[in-house]
């Protein structure tokens, strides 16, 4: 449903951040996008959602296709209308609005009032905590509650594809587990495709069907999630499991080079 073909992104006409990124998200699939800080994960999401255009960024090369439409030609409002909703990095709640108002903002462009009411209940069902806080001013929620609210707001648009940027950022391990279980449930219940950007590779690969690893503005690696979990580089650099003792051969040399490349 979503195809990103070899895109390059330049900020302010000079700063090149993406140098050829290709990826694909199939119907109803969860795809994880991993990579070190500054690799260009958020930029990739912004290119898809059109948010780049609000930050003086531009897709200079390549195409982004979504259900047969060239996304790179549209602005963020139009793209949201096509059924893509983004939960941006850093828990962007509308602080002075109540929890319920935040959720309603997510459903702003929908015309079916009854459906919106239903989905409000659906979100409350996924996040019972949010339901208790519905009349609260959202700026005072805890970090985890805010993250739930932001995911809930993205859900309220009833999108076909949800872009999630680091939903586990700054959350306690138990909370991360909770949120990931819910993401998995959402994907299963609503047949909603999810493109998930994460630092927490273990959590992300745990629920994803497919994964990509980004490095310096390129996709360095891509494959089914279970394969990636077993991949040595990923194990070492993202899962913190080093393969000491296993297979010592020329591959170590290669590995060393790769490591330099990873860290460059």
């Amino acid at each position, binding site marked *: 449903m979503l195809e990103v073909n070899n895109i390059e992104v330049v900020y302010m006409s000079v700063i090149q951040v993406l140098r050829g990124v290709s990826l694909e998200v199939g119907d109803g699939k969860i795809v994880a996008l991993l990579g070190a800080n500054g690799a260009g994960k958020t930029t990739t999401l912004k290119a898809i*959602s059109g948010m780049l255009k609000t930050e003086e960024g531009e897709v200079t090369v390549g195409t982004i296709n979504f259900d047969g439409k060239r996304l790179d030609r549209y602005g963020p409002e139009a793209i949201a209308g096509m059924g893509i909703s983004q939960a941006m990095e850093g828990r962007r709640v*509308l602080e002075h609005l109540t929890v319920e108002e935040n959720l309603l903002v997510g459903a702003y*462009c929908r015309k079916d009032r009854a459906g919106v009411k239903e989905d409000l209940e659906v979100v409350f069902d996924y996040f019972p905590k949010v339901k208790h806080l519905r009349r609260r001013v959202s700026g005072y929620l805890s970090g985890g509650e805010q993250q739930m609210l932001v995911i809930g707001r993205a859900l309220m648009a009833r999108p076909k594809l949800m872009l999630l940027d680091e939903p586990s950022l700054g959350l306690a391990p138990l909370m991360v587990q909770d949120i990931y279980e819910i993401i998995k449930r959402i994907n299963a219940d609503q047949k909603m495709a999810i493109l998930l950007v994460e630092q927490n590779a273990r959590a992300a690969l745990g629920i994803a069907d497919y994964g990509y690893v980004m490095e310096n503005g390129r996709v360095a690696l891509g494959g089914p999630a279970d394969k990636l979990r077993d991949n040595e580089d990923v194990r070492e650099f993202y899962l913190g499991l080093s393969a000491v003792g296993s297979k010592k051969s020329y591959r170590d040399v290669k590995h060393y080079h790769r490591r330099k490349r990873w860290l460059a």
Partner: protein
Amino acid sequence: MNFFLQLVVTGLALGMVYALVAIGFVIILKCSNAFNIAQGHFVLIGGYLGYTFLVPFGLPIWASLILAIAVAVVMGLLIERLAIRPLVGQPELAMIMMTIALATVLEGLATLIWGGEYKTYHGVLPTVTLKLGQISIPPESLIGLIVSVVTVALLMALFRYTKIGLAMRATAEDLQVVQSVGIKATTVYAVSWVIACVVGVIGGMLLGGVSGVMIPLAEIGLKAFAVVLLGGVNSIGGAIVAGIILGVLENVAAGYLDPLLPGGGLAQIFPFIVMIIVLIFRPYGLFGLVRIERI
């Protein structure tokens, strides 16, 4: 005592009008993050429109008000489309410069159309005077009070209970979030500028009935600015309370202090003195939005 109450009541009416104009200021500040230097010039245009519809056209006051609002709506849409939209995403300073340009253009237009002369329509307002015990409320204060209270109430309801109101409040907090859910920022801007123009024009019509209309009426924008600072720059409720405080203070000062001084300009600067004193003690104004900070 009666003299004092009289001053308070007329001051209340004046203050509500200040509050009305100040709300226009706050709305632009909230959604575009820019001080709208031209807010006072909307007031000026409103005064001249009031004159035009009431005197040469000889229309009744309600028809004049409706027509003036219609003109204000068109004015707001034009301003957003021609002057503001090209600047979205540009530095905030550019926006402020644009509002300065807008102020100059509006002043030029006023001079061109109405010759910049002193016009008054005090004479054509209905002459009913409301008696409350010993106090009598003059017609321009009564009209001012009713119209501004109704307008402010309608605006508050708009922000609180309508979809576009929700979009406006959301835009004031995070433009990107609003765009990411598909809300058209241009619609929100257009509505904000229309509201700013409408409240300015209504305020101008009301004030023009009291003091007459001339180019310096635009300086009311400065007073609205004082109201906004006093109330807390991004608080609409604060603007209302501060507007009333300044209106009443100004009127009471005019009643008691001006006779003491030949020339009597004290009433005009008195509100600013109050503003300075308050800001020394409360730099965010009386009701500045609480910055939500969790630790």
